[in-house]
């Protein structure tokens, strides 16, 4: 299986949250297929970017997070098209 890029990992984490509506950190870590340290790294970045929010120990997708999922393919196509 090819190594996932950073944007793909972020998209995968957000997708898991979206599909579950809300999820606790431990099952999210398990389903993300990342090591604990890498998950922490990505999770910190994603919450800092306000793609996810944590309420009462549960993780929810924000509007910005949903926008990222929606625009994910456009972002990849853009990077690919201009070879950035």
């Amino acid at each position, binding site marked *: 299986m090819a190594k996932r890029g950073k944007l793909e990992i972020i998209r995968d984490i957000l997708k898991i949250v979206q599909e579950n509506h809300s999820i606790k950190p431990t099952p999210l870590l398990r389903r993300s297929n990342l090591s604990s340290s890498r998950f922490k790294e990505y999770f910190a970045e994603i919450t800092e970017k306000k793609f996810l929010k944590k309420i009462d120990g549960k993780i929810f997708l924000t509007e910005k997070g949903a926008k990222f999922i929606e625009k994910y393919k*456009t972002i990849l196509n*853009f990077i690919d098209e*201009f070879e*950035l």
Partner: protein
Amino acid sequence: MPPQLARVLTTGIGIELIYSFVIIVASLMVYYGTRELYELSSHKGIKYFRQAFLFFAIAYSIRFFIKFILVYANKRQIIHLIPNPVGAIILFIFIYASAMAIFSLVYSLKWKKWRSFGMTVLHILAGVIALIAVFVQEGPIVYLLLNFVLFGFIIYSVSVAYKNRKKKNTWYLIYLLLSVFWLLNIVDILIPDFIQPFQFFIYLASLGAFLIVFYKVLRKSN
């Protein structure tokens, strides 16, 4: 009507205004049109790509301003404005923004390989080039030499990026044309009459290159 203004209005500054306006608007639309993609992804390539077009917009705005001032003040060369501190500052910003536009565009293609030295080195290099243009007032030879250095940088970087390209595309040629015609636009400001016989062709080619990028960016960012 003041005689200076009458002179400005009869020297084809209208064409300059339209030419600059189209390129500035196209560059700013590339910059703002890709804002959402960058804000969502924080991708470095997108960041430097956008930055290049912001610098192009700044440089083309200053270029038009310099053209206007030269005609208004009835001066032939930018060098004649340099004893005035404002003239020196304007020339510094113009050369700095011009060099940064080219550096950012090349860096957006090469940022993964050049991560080690980052953009700081290129900012310093652009500053040094701008200082040389302001303080070494030897006229055309130094200006041509500076442009030749930038030209060499573009040719080297784009050819290396082209060899390592992931797929067949024409972007490298468009980036090359965009940069080369921009260098000729700089020469036009620094050395009057140097490109005069080809000016119309250079303006058309520059417009073409910017509009191609603008069109593709709009299509691919929505």
